């Protein structure tokens, strides 16, 4: 076993452990922290796949922004009342569906093993050049999407004291 595989196995344990924590725990705040653990470990997987910029973005956006937004929203809405929501009684069916999805995907993966070389990743310079030449229109559209989402979120969240949406 080489060092990369050992590191990868460690990260797999963290990613899947955090993911199981998210779907199993009853406490919503704990679930948000498990989600942070899982997503930060995904950043480690990105580093192993030679995508350093994406690892940085992952930590910033998921670890820094999304988890904090979730925790803030829980804080603003009295999280203990959220915790009273029990799981769906069909959780067994959901488990069967999830396991069968994993079975199908892994059988496809094992029946189509590709012969591959080592992971190679271009540097940040190439990524930036690609993003701002071939992908510049989708990039700008993405920024517009973010702006619209921000404005929409603000309008949705404060509609009650404005024109009274109810």
């Amino acid at each position, binding site marked *: 076993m080489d060092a*990369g*595989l050992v590191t*990868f196995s460690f990260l797999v344990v963290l*990613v*899947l452990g955090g*993911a*199981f924590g*998210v*779907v199993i725990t009853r406490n*919503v705040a704990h*679930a*948000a922290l498990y*989600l942070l653990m*899982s997503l930060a470990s*995904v950043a480690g*997987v*990105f580093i192993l*796949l*030679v*995508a350093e910029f*994406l690892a940085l*973005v992952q930590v910033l*956006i*998921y670890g820094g922004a*999304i988890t904090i937004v*979730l925790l803030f*929203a829980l804080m603003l*809405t009295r999280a203990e*009342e*959220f915790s009273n*929501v*029990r*799981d*769906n009684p*069909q959780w067994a069916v*959901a488990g069967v*569906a*999830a396991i069968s*999805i*994993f079975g199908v*995907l892994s059988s496809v*993966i094992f029946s189509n093993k*590709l012969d*591959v070389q080592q*992971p*190679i*990743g*271009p540097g940040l310079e*190439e*990524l930036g050049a*690609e*993003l701002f030449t071939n992908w510049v229109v989708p990039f700008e559209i*993405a920024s517009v*999407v*973010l702006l619209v*989402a*921000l404005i929409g979120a*603000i309008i*949705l969240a404060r509609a*009650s004291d404005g024109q009274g949406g109810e």
Partner: protein
Amino acid sequence: MELYHVELLSAALFAIGVYGVLARRNAVMILMSIELILNAVNINAVAYAAFLDPGRLVGQVITIFVITVAAAEVGLAMAIILRLYRIRATANVDEADSMKW
């Protein structure tokens, strides 16, 4: 580390996320499970970009867009959940059924 190791990790993360979306009733928990699914897709895209398409960057660029859309989605979804909580005093998606036929 082989490509299929990363693919298996991605499949497992996806399956866990699907379980969370189907089994949870709390809207915030469903949102977190959707984040898990999106991350499974991201891992897959980055892995294929690194192993199979080393000269080009389509996988990484797609991942950047997925992360952008995920951020927008979380902002909007949290606003909707806060609104639902304010109107109905619940975050249980089974109780928000006024559009159910």
